[in-house]
């Protein structure tokens, strides 16, 4: 092969690199010692990423007819795109430029200047050997279908769907429950402003239901996702509701007439009842009820049909079956929310055993004017107003037994509870906290307000909630045993009611959902964003975005922000109409593939399928993200990764070991 003409550019990065690496010596060395490998020019410059630095490279490409460029500077994460673009502007294929890191991998991690300079030489030598084997690559372009799928109809999904639909693009909003609204619809007041959750949420829900650009698919679940960014094919199962929505007027007579009441474990958190034909709540969107076939007398015994008899519209259809819908969308936003920590697991707090221990979600329903007690805060007997209430923070959070993370909202939620109890019952309120976390706008002010209302704050981790009394004052009370760490003493606080501020946990099926959409979950089970700071709503899979609590615990403002942010990212994609994909991909050489199928279930992006007719594995180039897992696993060398071929990696190693310069040492 004719020898390449390679330019080597060494960046000082101010003193970031030059302070620890002798950049002049390094540059001179690269020009001399690597000349026989094709290095025709080697330069150093204070800031290679500046426009002057880039011009230096561009000038050499034109005047010195360079065919390859190696830039020794910071991590490729930062400036690979910069230097590739500089090369492309000068007429060179951008993938013939290699960025090697002598900052993160050399100057920042060493102090000995001579040793660091020697290591930098090896790093450059590896880059030179590698770039010789680079091939010019062209980005692939895929058209973007302007329709979007939003999964989850909580406030995050609602916000995202509205933003996109208001911009004139179609949205399919899929929700598992019979109504959209999510957890927010269950709340009464929202912190710190104490405005009514329903008052601010239901107008948005109504807009979603009537929006010309939104197809609302409630009581539905995504079954399968195929395809890739710009062109996903999604299979959705719309569960039979046994109510014909074309005929139903939403009059709710069927609910009144249904003779079967069941405890509602979802919307009422087990505190209230609903019928076998039901809407989650009166303002449900859509307004159509569904029949819960497991609890319906007709489905059980073949008799009843009270709903059908009383439905004037004739909308009841016991023969209805699940519908399978095929959707084509270009982008997907996952806003699947959270599950509440099952407080039974924290056995010493007695939830499920001691009647007057409530979870935070139960308490939300208790305070809700539309809830089972019409907003009256009462004990489990349904009538007694508590005279003293204990609110325990961090139940299931910041606890190595369950979840090591902070659930973010519990402090503010517990303060809100304290305020509501005080306001509506005048009871004595005790908050048991480890640390008080009231960051963000007007949160700490709310804390101060609650402090001034005379709520007691006791710092420590509650050891136990018990109904065993030691003193007459404790009789018929729930006793909270705690070490008050501010006075260094054990205390027993008798109360009538205990509220457990339970942790937010990932949805129980978040792993399956993540796998279905080709994204990953963190160790704790939250969906992983592309970058925790700089790309918080994108994922490593192109075209899949995340928003709200599915990504991690957060409050309503942050959830709405993420919903809007994800929508903005999707709208940006849609406006591009087509999208260039990095050409760094894995490829199967069919002639070398023996069809052993080792690679088939390894791909984190489900890009590999087996072609039964040809008996070879095939990689979908648009799904592949070039991670290299299959390249390493293929025992036959039939899969090669562009830009990460075995040849390139071995050449880089050869260079790193300086085998290109010295004779190899043979034992």
């Amino acid at each position, binding site marked *: 092969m004719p020898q390449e003409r390679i330019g080597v550019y060494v960046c000082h990065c101010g003193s970031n690199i030059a302070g620890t690496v002798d950049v002049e010596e390094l540059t001179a060395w690269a020009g001399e010692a690597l000349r026989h490998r094709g290095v025709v020019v080697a330069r150093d410059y204070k800031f290679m990423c500046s426009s002057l630095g880039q011009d230096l490279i561009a000038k050499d490409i034109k005047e010195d007819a360079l065919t390859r460029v190696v830039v020794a500077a910071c991590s490729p994460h930062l400036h690979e795109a910069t230097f590739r673009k500089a090369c492309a502007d000068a007429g060179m294929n951008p993938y013939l430029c290699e960025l090697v890191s002598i900052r993160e991998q050399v100057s920042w991690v060493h102090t000995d200047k001579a040793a660091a300079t020697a290591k930098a030489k090896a790093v450059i030598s590896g880059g030179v050997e590698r770039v010789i084997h680079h091939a010019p690559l062209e980005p692939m372009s895929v058209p973007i279908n302007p329709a979007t799928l939003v999964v989850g109809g909580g406030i995050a999904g609602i916000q995202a769907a509205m933003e996109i639909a208001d911009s004139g693009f179609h949205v399919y909003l899929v929700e598992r429950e019979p109504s959209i609204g999510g957890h927010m619809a269950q709340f009464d007041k929202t912190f710190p402003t104490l405005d009514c959750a329903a008052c601010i949420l239901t107008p948005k829900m109504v807009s979603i239901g009537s929006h010309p650009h939104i197809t609302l698919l409630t009581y539905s679940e995504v079954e399968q996702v195929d395809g890739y960014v710009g062109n996903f094919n999604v299979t959705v199962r719309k569960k039979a509701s046994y109510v014909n929505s074309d005929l139903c007027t939403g009059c709710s007579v069927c609910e009144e007439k249904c003779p079967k009441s069941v405890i509602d474990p979802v919307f009422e958190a087990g505190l209230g009842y609903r019928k076998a034909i039901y809407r989650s709540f009166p303002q449900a969107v859509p307004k159509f009820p569904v029949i819960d076939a497991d609890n319906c007398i007709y489905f059980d015994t073949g008799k009843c049909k009270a709903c059908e008899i009383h439905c004037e519209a004739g909308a009841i259809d016991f023969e209805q079956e699940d519908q399978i819908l095929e959707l084509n969308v270009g982008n997907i936003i996952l806003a699947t929310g959270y599950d509440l920590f099952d407080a039974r697991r924290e056995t010493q707090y007695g939830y499920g055993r001691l009647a007057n221990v409530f979870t935070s979600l139960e308490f939300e329903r208790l305070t809700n004017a539309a809830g089972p007690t019409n907003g009256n805060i009462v004990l489990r007997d349904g009538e007694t107003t508590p005279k003293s209430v204990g609110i325990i923070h961090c139940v299931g959070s910041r606890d190595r037994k369950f979840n090591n993370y902070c659930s973010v909202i519990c402090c503010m939620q517990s303060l809100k509870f304290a305020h509501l109890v005080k306001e509506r019952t005048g009871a004595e309120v005790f908050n048991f906290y480890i640390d008080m976390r009231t960051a963000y706008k007007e949160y700490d002010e709310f804390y101060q307000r609650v402090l001034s209302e005379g709520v007691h704050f006791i710092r420590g981790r509650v050891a136990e909630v018990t109904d065993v009394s030691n003193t007459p004052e404790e009789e018929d009370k729930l006793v909270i045993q705690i070490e008050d760490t501010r006075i260094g003493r054990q205390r027993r606080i008798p109360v009538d009611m205990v509220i457990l501020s339970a942790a937010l946990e990932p949805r129980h099926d978040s792993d399956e959902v993540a796998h279905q959409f080709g994204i990953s979950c963190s160790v704790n089970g939250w969906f992983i964003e592309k970058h925790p700071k700089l790309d918080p709503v994108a994922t490593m899979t192109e075209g899949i975005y995340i928003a709200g609590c599915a990504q991690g615990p957060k409050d309503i403002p942050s959830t709405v922000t993420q919903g809007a942010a994800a929508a903005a990212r999707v709208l940006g994609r849609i406006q591009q109409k087509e999208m260039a994909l990095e050409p760094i991909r894995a490829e199967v050489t069919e002639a070398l593939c023996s*069809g*052993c199928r080792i690679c088939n279930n390894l791909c984190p992006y489900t890009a590999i399928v087996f072609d039964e007719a040809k008996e070879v594995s095939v990689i979908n180039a648009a799904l592949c993200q070039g991670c290299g897992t299959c390249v390493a696993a293929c*025992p*036959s060398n039939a899969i090669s990764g562009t830009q990460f071929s075995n*040849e390139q990696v071995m050449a880089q190693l050869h260079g790193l070991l300086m085998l290109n310069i010295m004779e190899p040492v043979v034992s």
Partner: protein
Amino acid sequence: MNENGKPKFGMYWASSCGGCEISVLNIGEHILTVDEVFDVVFWPVATDFKYEDVRGYPDGYIDLCLFNGAIRNSENEEMAHLLRQKSKVLVAFGSCAYEGCIPALANFTSREAIFQTVYLDSPSVDNPGRVIPQPVTAVPEGQLHIPEFYNTVKSLDQVVDVDYTIPGCPPEPHQIWAVLQVVVAALTQGAELPPKGSIIGAKETAVCDECLHPKSEKKIFRFYRPYEKVPEPGVCLLEQGIVCMGPATRGGCGALCPQVGMGCRGCYGPLGGVADQGARMLSAVASVIGVGEPEMDERMLEREFETVMDTLVDPAGTFYRFSMAHSLLKRAKIKD
């Protein structure tokens, strides 16, 4: 060519078991064609020629020399140089010459350790004088010389230039015959030989390509040694946890072993472009271990993973059974 006008044929065994020679004879009645076409000038297992005869030949006298066996000692190496000099076409014949094969498993240990076991520690050894072979021994009549036993086994191409390689332990007779036909056609009808350096008498795809067991996605929960499990017929052996090197091994043998329920041993060596067959297979096998959940604690995952890997007895000997000398490892580093 000489007097009788026939091309000259030679075959030699260095450090090997003799199976390669048997395999050549296993081409059946075609051996008569070989005799008809070639003039055999050196073949210790079949004809009585001495090293001195070979030394007397002019350079390039032998048209086709099949060299089997690894380079274990100085005699092997000396013969490799001699036959290179005297041959027009030198073929690394079989796994030992190609990549070290079973003899190169000794590269996991050292010469000293081998001598210790073989001449001193082995229960069947009676060596009261604790005699260990020496290259030079002084006796009253003068000095006795025997070949020097090397510390490291090498493949043929690590000591001399090799024109072609025929893989296999041993190469399959039908492949030998196919190669001989190509060579005969080249010598007698002027047909073209494959490019120098080619691996001949084998396929470009893995053993799996020829294996008739249907394959599906793989998840391995434990490994079985051949005696531990009666393979379920018609199911890919690797999917049953039986170590089968098929995916990482060059085909051409007809997938004989997996077809009868014995996992491929890997004797045809790595596929094109693979520098290290053992590492490739280890990486592939590790990719399909069936344990672990995404949210699992890393130490727990590691423990579960190790439990599975512990059922894989002697991974180095298993995955590098044939390819040790030619692998990236070449030999184990022995600490002093």
